[in-house]
């Protein structure tokens, strides 16, 4: 798909994110908006090879695991608009009896989700298991993950990061959403994490960077490059710098919209900055 079409898709996803969290006055718009290009690239931009019908086993297709499950609004929107479930179902986000739980889960059988996430730091371990299963099954497809930068404060990540390099799990591409923000403030003020590139490299990963994770072309090119680095004995890490709240001027340059929904007026303002492209649900 050409870049312009992907950008239009992303704009519609932004509307979906804003409308989901606004309706129930809860959820996490900031990180969702920041990762819109990433999800669009994975599912629409030809990065991931995925089957239209959902099968939990995921044999003979690429897999994706969202470790920072709180950015479920962007995940749900992209899954729905990629055909995993009806787009209208976005109307049920966080409502009672919904398959679209606050954080993604397999429990209600939502197609596209392969493990529950939300309690942070667990996604990479699960992805490594799936990656090792692919090797045992002689399945050449890849496993993708996404993690928040603040999420790397959870120690389990580093168990997984050490395991992956030590065991040459080279069919995994782990992307870190480097937006520098977490609930209580900037990562620098909450818990400085130092040089993430040097850390991953010291653990034995092949590390590359996407300078602007909200530039669709850069994301496509970056992930394409990451794919070319798989199968060479090292797990691949992509440090992707994004802007939390991207696409909505008043949600950017702050951590304030990490887990806060816009009111009616704010929604109207935010939607006016992201005109309808594919039709609202």
């Amino acid at each position, binding site marked *: 798909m050409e870049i312009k079409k992907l950008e239009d898709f992303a704009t519609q996803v932004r509307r979906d994110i804003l409308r989901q969290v606004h309706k129930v006055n809860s959820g996490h718009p900031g990180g969702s908006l920041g990762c819109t290009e990433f999800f669009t690239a994975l599912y629409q931009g030809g990065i991931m090879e995925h089957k239209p019908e959902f099968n*939990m*086993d*995921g*044999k003979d297709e690429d*897999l994706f*695991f969202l470790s920072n499950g709180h950015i479920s609004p962007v995940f749900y929107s992209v899954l729905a608009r990629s055909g995993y479930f009806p787009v209208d179902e976005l109307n049920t986000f966080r409502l009672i009896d919904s398959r679209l739980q606050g954080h993604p*889960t*397999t*429990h209600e059988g939502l197609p596209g989700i*392969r*493990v*529950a*996430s*939300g*309690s942070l*730091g*667990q*996604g*990479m*371990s*699960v*992805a*490594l*298991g*799936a*990656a*090792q*299963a*692919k090797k*045992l*099954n002689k*399945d050449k497809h890849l496993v993708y993950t996404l993690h928040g930068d603040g999420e790397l404060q959870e*120690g*389990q990540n580093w*168990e*997984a990061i*050490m*395991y992956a390099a*030590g*065991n040459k799990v080279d069919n995994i591409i782990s992307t870190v959403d480097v937006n520098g923000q977490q609930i209580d403030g900037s990562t620098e003020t909450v818990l400085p994490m130092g040089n993430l590139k040097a850390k991953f490299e010291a653990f034995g990963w092949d590390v590359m960077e996407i300078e602007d994770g909200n530039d669709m072309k850069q994301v496509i090119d970056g992930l394409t490059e990451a794919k070319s680095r798989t199968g060479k004995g090292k797990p691949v890490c992509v440090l992707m710098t994004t802007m939390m709240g991207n696409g909505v001027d008043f949600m950017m340059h702050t951590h304030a919209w990490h887990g806060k929904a816009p009111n009616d007026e704010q929604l109207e303002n935010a939607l006016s900055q992201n005109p309808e492209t594919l039709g609202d649900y």
Partner: protein
Amino acid sequence: MKKYTDTGKQDTRSGFGAGLTELGRTNPNVVALCADLVGSLKMQDFIDENPERFFQVGIAEANMMGMSAGLTIGGKIPFAGTFANFATGRVYDQIRQSIAYSGKNVKICASHSGVTLGEDGATHQILEDIGLMKMLPGMIVINTCDFNQTKAATLAIADYDGPVYLRFGRPKVANFTPEDQKFEIGKAVHLYDGNDVTIIATGHLVWEAIEAAQKLNEKGISAEVINIHTIKPLDEQAIIKSVRKTGCVVTAEEHNFLGGLGESVARTLAENNPAPQEFVATQDTFGESGTPEQLFEKYGLNAEAILKAVEKVIRRK
């Protein structure tokens, strides 16, 4: 009175190892993981025969639980082995979110449960794991009593689709379960029929219950003995039926009386057939260093303790 023969003391963890080895030969989907305790878990034979199906994760139990969940995506049946303490409390949230809530077909295989790992002391013992695991929605909780039953259980859980906690231990204990006895998840094993008291035991306390019943028989007290190897789902009908007949019950387990088998039995009876109950279990305490026999005696977990509990509970009828 029926005689149960100890065919030679063996550790339950070796029953697990033997079962895993057999699964390696019979079920190509079975994979194993371990967090630097291969020798203690008796996994070496499986590893020697199936090196490509074994994942050594190092001293990183959280990663092991997550990887186990991931391996099921792709059709594998992971058996993740470590000490019971590190297989439960240390990684509760990983089990909760990535395995139980996600409904993954992972077998958590926990050796060195209870106090009978002995000399290592309370940092490595655990008396809370049954409670932790049985509270997780959808988790099957099994505590086997001897080598043969542990081996049979290991084979049986591979055929069950869903998360299982399999609890066993380190000491060599009497092996009396018939080698060909089929293991049925959730089905109690009747060891003695009796009329005066029901003794419900699990794990290493089952042999102690058998010995207690034999001594009670000499005193003219007829004890019904039930081996509850599956604490969840509990064979409620077997318990209710027996206690309706005997009118009182003693539960026996190598676990805290809070959260263990005894509480599950008490709840079942409270709902269906209230009856006096005594709990042979640890009394909300940590363990300590010592030999298994010393620890069983000090913490009131042997046949002698069961006898005392029976005398007390019969007086309360």
